[in-house]
């Protein structure tokens, strides 16, 4: 556990607060993702202009058609107007379709690059990043924040179209008749005012909805995953009551939000009707006086019918834009996190090694100032098995983590065949090393895929051989589809021991020169364990191995035991040597024997 807070991402709830409406940094950086696809943008924007113009022109053409009836009374002109309308419809169709398609390609392209870039970046980040950030937190950035941006992009596009058609409609009204346009548009400031006030309440309410649904889903998830514990502790009723509370809060929040959304309707309807009534009344009187054609009144009404949707959309999208700015900041924060362990600029490939490992004066601190390793010197000869022994906090896990270069040493150096591991690429080091962790990690994929992992070239025979070597073959064959059985989430359809055997087979198949083993045999059952011990011996013989040992048999079989205490090497030697020496190892060993006797 590292309680240090630096390098930790904020959680979704912590940062739920209001974002800026416009964040220059975010917009500029987002724009960079558009650039590679600028061709699509260059096609899309003119298409949008054509599309908006053609739809704004419809009422105008209707007006011309009606004028041809009432003023010039010409069938010829009427025909022309109708044909023009048809032509317009076609142009509108084509431009609309291609505009939307190109935009979709553009925005999906942006989202793909963002996702992929984030994932690639996550692969570069060091293990220390994952020490500080829970999986859920990181996941939410790659998923929710990207979805927010996705919505933002589509909102931006829609808003642009809305804005353009508003401008077009106002221009058309003004061009037709300025005084009547002024009257028709008189309600607009009122509407805008109402919407601005409304959206302030609405935003709060929508945020409440989001908070409520987050609570409901978190609780649900936890109850499903933890259902076995809940039932074994008979806590169903308490949890059902608690869930009902969250669920009811969610219901209330939604009903409140629904009320607010619905409240806009009467306002919009009344204002639309008022605007129409004014146009009909005033325009009608004007037309009776001959100051205005009736067709203009009709066109005005048609425009007013088209006016309010864009306004409503625009005010609603305010919240989305804000949210996207927050998401953008969070995404870029992640992308800007620097990996602590990086390939040096001139890092070389590590050539095939014999497996000679040296820790030279290695010091390490997870948190600056709190040293976990205080100058460690270990020399491991090729093919040697070294068992690490020591109490909690002695630094055993840290030694193995540094060997795998999850972290870089604070001082001193670690060499493999004389190469400082910081001077070689991480990939080339990893190729010659395998690690078995205490908690086996399995994918929800087939058993075979889990054993192969990234060794895609492995043949079925190799996979089976590896499984046989660790004694996993037998139980795998008993699974419904044998090696093709799909494992459930984190391998839950296997017992702990079985999971460990699979992860063991994986390490064997990788056929590394150096094996790091956080001895996992602790929970492998008696029968299986004998097999594993046997397999271990064969496997270890050909490799350099560092083992965090929990078993006397492992310790006894090790070529050397390194006793760690509080970040320092206390003793080194074989089991017999150390016992004979009568030092700390022997001391604790005897204490334990005595204690074991009373307990037994």
């Amino acid at each position, binding site marked *: 556990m590292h309680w240090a807070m630096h390098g930790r991402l904020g959680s979704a709830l912590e940062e739920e607060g209001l974002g800026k409406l416009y964040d220059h940094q975010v917009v500029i950086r987002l724009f960079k993702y558009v650039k590679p696809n600028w061709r699509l943008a260059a096609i899309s924007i003119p298409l949008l202009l054509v599309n908006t113009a053609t739809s704004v022109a419809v009422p105008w053409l209707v007006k011309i058609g009606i004028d041809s009836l009432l003023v010039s009374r010409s069938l010829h002109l009427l025909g022309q107007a109708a044909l023009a309308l048809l032509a317009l419809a076609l142009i509108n169709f084509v431009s609309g379709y291609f505009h939307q398609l190109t935009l979709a390609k553009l925005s999906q392209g942006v*989202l793909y690059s963002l996702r992929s870039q984030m994932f690639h970046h996550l692969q570069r980040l060091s293990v220390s990043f994952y020490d500080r950030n829970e999986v859920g937190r990181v996941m939410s950035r790659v998923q929710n924040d990207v979805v927010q941006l996705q919505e933002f992009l589509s909102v931006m596009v829609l808003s642009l179209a809305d804005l353009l058609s508003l401008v077009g409609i106002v221009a058309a009204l003004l061009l037709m008749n300025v005084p009547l346009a002024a009257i028709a548009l008189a309600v607009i400031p009122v509407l805008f005012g109402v919407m601005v006030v409304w959206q302030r309440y609405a935003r709060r309410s929508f945020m409440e909805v989001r908070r409520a649904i987050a609570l409901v889903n978190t609780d649900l998830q936890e109850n499903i995953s933890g259902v076995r514990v809940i039932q074994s502790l008979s806590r169903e009723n308490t949890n059902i009551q608690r869930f009902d509370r969250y669920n009811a809060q969610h219901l209330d929040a939604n009903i409140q939000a629904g009320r607010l959304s619905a409240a806009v309707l009467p306002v919009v309807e009344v204002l639309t009707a008022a605007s129409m*009534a004014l146009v009909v009344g005033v325009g009608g009187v004007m037309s009776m006086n001959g100051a205005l054609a009736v067709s203009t009144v009709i066109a005005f009404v048609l425009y007013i019918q088209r006016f309010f949707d864009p306004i409503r959309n625009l005010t609603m999208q305010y919240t989305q834009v804000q949210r996207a700015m927050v998401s953008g900041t969070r995404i870029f924060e992640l992308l800007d996190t620097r990996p602590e362990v990086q390939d040096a600029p001139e890092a070389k490939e590590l050539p095939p090694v014999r497996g000679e490992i040296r820790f030279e004066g290695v010091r390490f601190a997870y948190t600056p100032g709190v040293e976990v390793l205080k100058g460690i010197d270990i020399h491991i000869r090729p093919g040697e098995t070294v068992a690490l022994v020591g109490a909690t906090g002695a630094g055993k896990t840290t030694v193995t983590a540094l060997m795998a270069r999850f972290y870089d040493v604070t001082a001193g150096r670690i060499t493999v065949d004389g190469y400082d591991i910081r001077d070689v690429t991480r990939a080339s080091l990893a190729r010659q090393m395998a*690690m078995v962790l205490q908690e086996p990690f399995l994918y929800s994929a087939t058993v075979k895929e889990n054993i192969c992992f990234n060794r895609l070239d492995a043949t079925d025979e190799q996979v089976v051989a590896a499984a046989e070597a660790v004694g996993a073959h037998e139980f795998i064959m008993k699974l419904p589809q044998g090696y093709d059985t799909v494992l459930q989430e984190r391998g839950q359809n296997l017992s702990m021991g079985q999971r460990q055997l699979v992860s063991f087979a994986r390490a064997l198949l990788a056929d590394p020169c150096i094996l790091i083993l956080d001895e996992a045999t602790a929970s492998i059952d008696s029968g299986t364990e004998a097999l594993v011990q046997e397999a271990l011996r064969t496997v270890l013989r050909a490799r350099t191995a560092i083992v965090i040992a929990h078993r006397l048999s492992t310790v006894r079989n090790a070529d050397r035991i390194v006793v760690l205490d509080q970040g320092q090497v206390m003793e080194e030697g074989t089991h017999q040597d150390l016992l004979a020496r009568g030092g700390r190892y022997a001391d604790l060993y005897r204490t334990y024997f005595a204690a074991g006797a009373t307990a037994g």
Partner: protein
Amino acid sequence: MRVLGRVTALAWRHPVPFLLAYLCLLGATAFALLLPRLLGSAVDTAFLARSEGRLVVLALLIVLVGAMRGLLGYGQTYLGEWLSQRVAYELRNALFQKLERLSFGFHDQQQTGNLMSRATADVEGVRWFVSMGLLRAGQVVLLIGGAAALLFLLDVKLTAMALAFIPFAAWRTTVIARAMRRIWTQVQQLTGELTTVLQENLTGARVVRAFGAEEFEKRKFDATAREVASTSVEASRLQAVNSSQLTLAFTAATALVLWFGGRQVLAGTMTPGELAQFIFYLTILAMPVRMTGWVVNSLSRGVSSGERIFEVLDTRSPVRDRPGAHDLGRVHGHVRFENVSFSYNDGTGPPVLRDISFEARPGQVVALVGAPGSGKSTVVHLIPRFYDVTRGRVTIDGTDVRDVTLASLRRNVGIALQDVFLFSASIRENVAYGRPDIPFAQVVEAAKLAQLHDFVATLPQGYETHVGERGVTLSGGQRQRLAIARVLLLGPPILILDDSTSSVDAHTEHLLRQALAEVMKGRTTFVIANRLTTLQSADLVLVLQDGETVQRGTHAELVQQPGLYQDVYRLQLLPQEERVPMSAPGDGDGS
């Protein structure tokens, strides 16, 4: 249809809001249909009747109609939201209660993600159906039907011509809506896959790095992400076709009306106001036609979502209280297995346990030994009825466990499961999980007994420290000690420890065992063990192989007999003897 009927019945549980919503809907639609009419007569008033007075009256009527429509629209929207959210609320609660009570057999076969999506996406699907399919559908039908009827009264031929496209447009938008739904499901599935790749990659960050599998992972992720992108583009393309072709249809219809209606105006068989009415009606029809796609969509989504929800709701938990089940009370802890056989899937799966019989007297310790998959965990899971036996019976103090209520049974049985699950809450809440209202002092006492207290004391926030997301911040050993503390707090007469001391370091294990020895006094204890000391102290050791007891007896007896136990003892237990003194598996360094 049966599914939709059930959903409708759920909504009908609230008849007053349901009917009121429909009333509002009717009224709002009627007023909406009135508006083009008023506008049309206004045009005629201005052009033909030339009466200022009538014009003013019409203008006022327009405002009035708008206001009524707005108010009724408010009622319709609000009540619709209320009703649909209420149905969603009830379904979510019902699902939750069901999931909480369904036995292990059900949960073994379900993935969390799948159940989650039923409780979220599918509940939303049903809600959408209530809101669209049950309510909005009425509006769509009424608006289109009403407008058609009113226009037919005006001019049959022109109406036929103007509205001819509507069935076609409605059909097209429905077809596309269906295709869209398919594609959206696909997008969701792909997004789900992306999530899995991401989640597993992040959880396994160390393994990925240790094996240098970053490039492999990137390729996997990019391939799925690319598919998500291209499928989403396809969805947008369909959307674009749909909205563009609807606009095309409406504009074309306007052109037709203008041409044919205009000829009638010129011929004097139609007034300009009537022509304007036609055009106004076309405008208000755009919304409902567009909506037919959604309505039809909501039906099919409602069916598939409803099915998935009812499938869970209709699952009867095989393990449940029998009618007339009585309260077990507090037992002495005399546990008997009588010829117990068990197979998963309600007895249809391959046999897991065959004819197991044994007896544990109050206060005795029974140890179970065997290879993985030999059935040890299954045996102990039958005691608190996580599963029911297929044949034979399990009794406690002479009572068949199936004859008593689950709650009273489980109060008597404390089990520390192998896979320790931590709730994202404080350590205190996690320890007190089974007894939320217990005094803090007792929590501390249990923690002390389980050797957890010293560790907790080193944490800055002590017992209030939050352990999140399956307890990522605790090591395996610490989690197990917490699980034991959790069980100790229940003070059950029967105690089950499923491998739970396996990854506690030797020193802690020793202390823990001493503490447990205290706790076990007066309790019947079942231990799944592979520790010599445990086996030595057990009153009965059961050796399981492929679901059968191959040997039984005390440790002293069993080591003398040739057989599996002796082999295991020689191969593993003996060399193990005592584990390495100072090692602490799972208790990560640097903590």
